[in-house]
């Protein structure tokens, strides 16, 4: 099963409204993506917590419909 990049971006922004999201389809197969997510809500949180917030926004699709999403998260530079 695969997911559209636009759908991933939409879900992340729905869950984390201020997020800046950049998505790259790594293999062009709609199944292996890399996402960079920048949000002020990540400030002061551990990487595990930041990634959990993104997974939460994806509402259980990660690991199911979406096999691989390489994540890089950060808070905006002050």
């Amino acid at each position, binding site marked *: 099963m695969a997911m559209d990049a636009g759908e991933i971006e939409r879900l992340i922004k729905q869950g984390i409204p201020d997020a800046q999201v950049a998505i790259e389809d790594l293999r062009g197969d709609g199944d292996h993506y890399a996402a960079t997510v920048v949000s002020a809500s990540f400030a002061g949180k551990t*990487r*595990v917590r930041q*990634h*959990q917030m993104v*997974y939460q926004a994806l509402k*259980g699709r*990660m*690991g*199911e419909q979406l096999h*691989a999403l*390489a*994540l*890089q998260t950060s808070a905006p530079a002050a």
Partner: protein
Amino acid sequence: MTNNPVIQRIQQDISGNDVVLYMKGTPVFPQCGFSAAVVQVLSELGVKFKGIDVLTDPSLRQGIKEFSSWPTIPQLYVKGEFVGGCDIVREMYSSGELRELLQTRGVNTQAA
């Protein structure tokens, strides 16, 4: 505490071993590129770890995801604490944070 036998087993494994990697396949024969990448990082750091293959047990494969609220495998635990999946482990390795974390927790690493 929990009565769920899978969760109990996870708790035993991560408290009884300094470094535990839940992975697809075994350290010698990883079955997934992401698991293989974490095995490689741990080998480069010269860290002894226990690899647990989730592919041999569907209840464990599901249970570990619920245990950590983390949807993917691999998952790395150091001294009972969830450190992260493949992306985080690789990022922490390149920044030197992973070696620092292991040393702070008293886990032996070999000088590279």
